[in-house]
């Protein structure tokens, strides 16, 4: 799947500054970032926000990306103050994600790669999150909690692979939060998770919810069903407020994540935790993880919403590392895939 450049070419690449542009559009965000040797030159992003009570469906999301991607591309180039000639390679998200949005962005990546005569680097979205987190926080070899609307994984690096130590066996934690926000008809602007987080701050009364840790894995769909069945009644009878339910849900979900992350750390003997993915910018999750880390004498690394939430720079950064290690993707292999596991990618850029 990947071709390795001859040694001479690789040497040239290592001597000069490398500029990579990254295109991301696997979910409801379309983002394009430009990175020059670890420096983010530009990272504009547009989010497809649906009305309260509604999720984003693939076809409409693809339409949103198609309508916005070129404007975001112009913006990225202008902000970075870079001409296409200065770019060394085009990185794009190969997967995992929704097919129609992925294809829309990949078509643009392939077209500019041909117009500008640049190589393409196909990037795994999850690897993008991990590498961006490492770049921004400086974490060297962390146990990674990757939590978003589509993924929930506990990851650690071992022998040339990012290995998945635990993951969700059904829906992602962000999906659970998003869908609960729909039950409460909370706004999706800027994101349902953000609005749950704000509401939860006012919550006082804890509703005991199912706690679903199975070994190293977690399960969220049962918790969601439990609330779906009861939320209406609990609110109508005045037993609990919306804020109470948001608070109870967050406390339960995050406790499960902290527990499994701690177990992975103990197993690996790790003293660092990195939280990435869209749910990772939730401050209550960071606070709970911070308490666990403090007790273990470990360090917590997290980033804010500009890099936690899907963005183009993270794809550029993973693409940068792959490109420097001599990996590019032949044109005919630049297709996309809805399923693409984190541990499918050989990590050629780490010792």
């Amino acid at each position, binding site marked *: 799947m990947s071709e*390795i450049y001859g040694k001479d070419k690789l040497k040239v690449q290592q001597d000069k500054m490398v500029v990579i542009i990254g295109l991301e559009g696997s979910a409801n965000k379309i983002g394009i970032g430009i990175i020059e040797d670890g420096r983010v030159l530009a990272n504009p992003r547009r989010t497809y926000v649906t009305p309260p009570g509604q999720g984003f469906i693939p076809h409409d999301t693809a339409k949103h990306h198609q309508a916005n991607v070129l404007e975001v*591309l112009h913006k990225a180039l202008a902000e970075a103050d870079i001409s296409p000639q200065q770019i060394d390679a085009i990185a794009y998200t190969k997967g995992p994600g929704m097919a*129609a949005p992925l294809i829309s962005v990949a078509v643009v990546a392939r077209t500019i790669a*041909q117009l*500008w005569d640049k190589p393409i680097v196909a990037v795994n979205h999850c690897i993008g999150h991990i590498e961006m987190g490492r770049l921004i926080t400086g974490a060297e070899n962390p146990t990674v909690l990757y939590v978003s609307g589509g993924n929930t994984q506990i990851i650690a690096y071992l022998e040339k692979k990012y290995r998945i130590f635990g993951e969700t066996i059904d829906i992602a934690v962000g999906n659970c939060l998003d869908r609960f926000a729909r039950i409460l008809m909370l706004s999706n602007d800027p994101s349902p998770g953000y609005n749950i987080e704000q509401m939860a701050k006012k919550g006082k009364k804890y509703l005991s919810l199912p706690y679903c840790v199975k070994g190293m894995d977690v399960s969220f769909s049962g918790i969601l069903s439990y609330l779906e069945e009861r939320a209406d009644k609990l609110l109508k009878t005045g037993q609990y407020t919306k804020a109470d339910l948001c608070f109870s849900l967050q406390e339960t979900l995050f406790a499960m994540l902290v527990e499994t992350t701690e177990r992975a750390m103990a197993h690996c003997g790790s003293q660092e935790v990195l939280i990435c993915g869209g749910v990772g910018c939730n401050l209550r999750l960071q606070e709970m993880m911070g308490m666990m880390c403090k007790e273990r004498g470990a360090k917590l690394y997290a980033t804010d919403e500009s890099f936690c939430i899907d963005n183009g720079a993270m794809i550029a950064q993973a693409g940068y590392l792959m490109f420097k290690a001599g990996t590019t993707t032949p044109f005919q292999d630049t*297709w996309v895939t809805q399923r693409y596991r984190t541990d499918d990618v050989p990590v050629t850029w780490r010792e």
Partner: protein
Amino acid sequence: MDSDEENVSGLPAAVVKLEIPYNSSREAEIVRNSLQVDPEPKRSQSLKTFNVRENLLCVEIRSPDVRQLRTAVNSFMDLVHLATKTVDQFGPPVQRTKKVCSQ
């Protein structure tokens, strides 16, 4: 569009032929290359054939029935439009350099 041909399943095939003009044959090739990479969706029974004739991109889409053809043409047109806009806004293509051969 014609539907008098028979396909494998014995049903009349629905076919649409598109010709899209570009500024140069290179631009037509670029759009073809960008759109050719993705395999047909798993459950789709439609088939696409691409050809570049001078500055024309010629595409033939063939489906078992009109309903499926409509779906295939719809999503294909969206992507042709996107690739064409990209060429218009970020082209024209640069002169290609000779690739360094790997040993």
